[in-house]
């Protein structure tokens, strides 16, 4: 996975912001996942169709984090989302 890639969010996933965190429900497996505040913002950007790099752009404006760390975290989250079947590489 590269930082310019985009993800396609599974239509089977319901996302809901709950008190600053984001809870994901995978209707296909009945499994729940939790994302912290930054993870939730990344998810929101991906849902909006942003590439991973564009998601980093958004987060960079909102949080005090280095670009290098951010790209590392976004790629890691993208890998986990794909692994859990919550998204696919577009």
């Amino acid at each position, binding site marked *: 996975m590269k930082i310019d890639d985009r993800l396609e969010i599974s239509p089977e996933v*319901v996302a*809901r912001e*709950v*008190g600053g*965190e984001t809870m994901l429900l995978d*209707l296909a497996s009945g499994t*729940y996942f939790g994302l912290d505040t930054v993870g939730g913002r990344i998810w929101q950007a991906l849902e909006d169709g942003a590439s991973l790099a564009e998601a980093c752009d958004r987060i960079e404006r909102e949080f005090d984090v280095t670009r290098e760390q951010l790209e590392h975290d976004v790629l890691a989250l993208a890998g986990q989302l794909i692994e859990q079947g919550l998204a696919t590489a577009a």
Partner: protein
Amino acid sequence: MTLRFVQLAARDPEPLRREPYDRWLTLDGDPTLLFFRDKGGYLLRFLDVADFAIDLAGRIVACTPAPGITDEMVADLYFNQVIPLIMGHDGELVIHASAAAAEGAAIALVGSTGRGKSTLAGAFAQAGYPFLTDDGLILDLVGEGYVVRPRRPILRLRADSETALLALPEAARSAAGEFAKCRIAASAEIPFQIDPVPLSAIYILREPAGREDVAIAPLSPAAALSELIGHSFMLDVEDRPRVRAHFNRLAELAVRADCHTLDYPRRYEALPSVIDAIISHARSRGTDL
């Protein structure tokens, strides 16, 4: 909610060759309830106790008890499990919780079977705080908050809880029922809350850690949602539109309600101080108490 209930003659359950699409397990991991699809509706098999065939289109529930199962045991399952499952399917918010009313607001006690929900509700009632339900808590979103609807004026307690908690006359007791529980009707000593009351706070009963004090800790909305998901009534976990709506209702509850975990000494003589601690905590939260 209108349903017609029919009780058929007792017989041994017919073997079912298909796999259940869902099952409930006891705290020990043993199956206790199997969910099947059946003739366009559902068949709920409470193992060794009864089958309930649910025809949602006709709004009929037909129960076939196993031989030796009493009418009271059937009624307990119907009111405490089957109706909440159907209500959840119909879009209501129903949680595995008991509740008691204190100073005009409800304290909800969420937990799996065996965690102490009914015993605490009984202890609240005995201390003068009327109980609203001993399971199948129904919550209605009204304005910005929730209102708890009273349910059955019956508490189901394990025999040891009953003996330790409630000095009731012999006539008020029934024989030990399903899961070795006794049925206690509401009375002057064990008052029941007749009218709905606003929800004050939700306490999720933790696995006992053997502690001697009362431990109450706040839950973030996300953590509360994770807990509530596991303690809600969902008839068809494969019905995606309903699962989605159910998830959203629970998320709303997790955001709006004041949720905490609760652990306390599981000794009957400690219950009055446990009740005091919960009331005092709810008051300190600045809720309706």
